[in-house]
């Protein structure tokens, strides 16, 4: 080989080797030797991450045996599952309540009950509606980080005067629908300018429509997706497709801005009411301070006053994956987050309510959300409901999303859509029971 060639090849080899080494450095998890390092994977970015980082810092400062490392992981649920399978999971994984059942069935989580009981973190410490879903199959699989309840947010300046206060706003679905008919605005060609309400905005809880009409999805043994209350709920969804036109809704919605900006549809007045969570107030405060708004429980069907005060609940949870290197130290951190002052600080920073049974007056008085007491009340309400505790919840949720879309685009009639979903999930559930649960 000629000299320039040799030099060229050697240079290339050095560059490549250097890149490989650099690549390894980038992905390595640095650990210290003086303290136990607890790796904490969490879904949050931006401001929400900042709040949790404050908690992590406080914990690290409060003792000298353990240091927690916070990492922002997108798709944290999938990644945690894969890492656990690969034998290299994080010590603490911040996932969603909805993941709990499939992870537990897959034997991916550590049962926290012994450690929690020893620390006094039992059912009496928490709001029942938040604690119960964390217990499953005789174990305790997670403890909360931040909870949420959902309510209908209203723009008093966009609804008729007679409805513009929480006390006078329609309490029933029928009342809501009538109001929507009155106030929604369209252009001559049918394009939407302002919609009184849109079931598909934000569209994160399509599984909840049935329960809002008194239906249930799972009775503990069998799925009941096509029960008559659920069909009634989707019939109601369909009325909105007919009212506005599926095409018009889709066009209208695709022009909505991100919720973290003044172009959020509720803030911009493209919708007069919006079903959303306790955290909404935080975003309004940041992006459109002074915006007139109030919150009321989501309406109930006229003939089902027994459902009054309902809300679908959710929570972000902290788990210890099976095979974590430092489970005891990981629990030390989780226990710290559960301390009342820490938890209230975190929830307040996120603009959410607290999952603990006891709440300080200070929390309520200094909370940025003027309607925090409503959200707290909804969380404690016996009418509040959680996602069904079934291992195939991801598939059920996806299937109900599809049914929702089929009904909203008028591709299928509601009873047909739900019937198809029921059939498909029945087969899947049978297979799952056979293959996963009966091992």
């Amino acid at each position, binding site marked *: 080989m000629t000299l320039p060639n040799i030099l060229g090849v050697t240079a290339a080899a050095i560059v490549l080797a250097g890149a490989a080494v650099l690549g390894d450095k980038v992905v390595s998890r640095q650990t210290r030797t003086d303290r136990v390092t607890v790796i904490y994977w969490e879904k949050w970015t931006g401001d929400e991450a900042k709040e949790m980082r404050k908690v992590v810092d406080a914990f690290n400062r409060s003792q000298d045996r353990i240091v927690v490392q916070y990492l922002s992981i997108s798709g944290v649920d999938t990644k945690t*599952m894969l890492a656990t399978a690969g034998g290299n999971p994080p010590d603490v994984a911040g996932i969603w309540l909805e993941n709990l059942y499939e992870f537990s069935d897959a034997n991916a989580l550590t049962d926290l009950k012994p450690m929690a009981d020893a620390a006094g973190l039992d059912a009496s410490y928490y709001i029942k509606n938040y604690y119960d879903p964390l217990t499953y199959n005789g174990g305790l699989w997670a403890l909360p980080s931040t909870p949420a309840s959902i309510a209908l947010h209203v723009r008093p300046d966009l609804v008729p005067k007679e409805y513009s206060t929480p006390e006078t706003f329609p309490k029933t679905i029928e009342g809501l629908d009538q109001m929507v008919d009155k106030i929604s605005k369209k252009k001559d060609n049918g394009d939407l300018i302002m919609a009184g309400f849109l079931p598909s905005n934000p569209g994160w809880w399509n599984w909840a429509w049935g329960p809002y009409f008194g239906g249930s999805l799972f009775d503990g043994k069998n799925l009941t997706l096509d029960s008559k209350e659920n069909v009634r709920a989707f019939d109601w969804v369909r009325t909105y497709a007919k009212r506005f036109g599926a095409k018009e809704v889709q*066009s209208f919605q*695709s022009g909505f801005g991100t919720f973290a900006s003044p172009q959020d549809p509720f803030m911009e007045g493209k919708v007069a009411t919006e079903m959303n969570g306790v955290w909404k107030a935080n975003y309004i405060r940041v992006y459109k301070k002074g915006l007139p708004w109030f919150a009321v429980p989501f309406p109930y069907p006229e003939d089902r006053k027994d459902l009054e005060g309902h809300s679908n609940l959710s929570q972000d949870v902290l788990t210890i994956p099976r095979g974590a290197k430092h489970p005891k130290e990981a629990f030390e951190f989780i226990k710290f987050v559960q301390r009342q002052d820490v938890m209230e600080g975190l929830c307040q920073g996120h603009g959410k309510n607290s999952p603990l049974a006891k709440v300080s007056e200070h929390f309520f008085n200094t909370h940025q959300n003027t309607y925090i007491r409503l959200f707290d009340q909804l969380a404690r309400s016996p009418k509040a409901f959680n996602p069904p505790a079934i291992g195939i919840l991801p598939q059920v949720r996806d299937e109900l999303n599809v049914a929702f879309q089929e009904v909203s685009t008028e591709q299928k009639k509601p009873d047909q859509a739900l019937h198809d979903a029921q059939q498909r999930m029945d*087969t899947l559930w049978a297979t799952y029971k056979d293959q996963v649960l009966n091992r």
Partner: protein
Amino acid sequence: MNKRDARIGILFASPWILGFLIFLTYPLIASLVYSLTNFSILRPPKYIGFQNYRELFHDQVFYTSLSNTLLYVAGAVPLSTIVAIGLAMLLNTKVKGMSIYRTMFFLPTLVPMVALGTLFLWVFNGDYGLLNAAFHKVNVTPPNWLGDPTWAKWTLILISIWGCGQAMVIYLAGLQDVPVSLYEAADLDGAKAWAKTKSVTIPMISPVILFNVIMGIIGAMQIFAVPYVMFPGGAPARSTYFYTSYLYDNAFQYQRMGYASAMGWVLFAITITLTTIALKLSDKHVHYEAN
């Protein structure tokens, strides 16, 4: 062929031989084995015979995702081929500034999938999109590109045509190899443009067409990234839920790797079938130069 040559030959080819064994043979066989198990990655695979395949053949979403994919292939491959050849022929007329035009047609293929997806979410947007603005200018009501189950697929087909630059470049190279003498002979016979294309150009580049069509089918069958970005979950109502999307969800969202492996093998079988059909059809129509 002497012993020394044989040794060196195999030595030189060894990276590929190793790669072939590690990254192709082993995964193919392993995936076949996995397809006969229930494998949720957290527990060791458990043998269940052909149950995955039985379940697959009764799975509505399997058929939906497969038919979506086949429809997409049937639309995207022929249309991209025609457009790519047409563009290549235009570029082959040796106009000035050819390299600029060539770059402009090739540019779309350089765009990463996510950017492509989000860009086209814009272009096809019902109220604010580029495309519909053009429709409105001529007072025609545009279809609901992103929200209508039928039109959503067409959105993806149009995007794939837009990305035909890679194939176009290969066709261009093929066209430039066609001997000018053949065209001159056709001219002397008084052949018009279309006749020349039909009897000279197409036959001469038919091997290239075959190659690109086969690669096109294989690629289109595996469509994943753009729908993943533009239509999460296959919205609306699974009309854009493609085979690889469902495979990915089964493997990584629902923890059903055995089931996903069975899907993979079915895809393989279908791809081989389509390719074999293409090859068989080509025997009659493809014209090879004597080597």
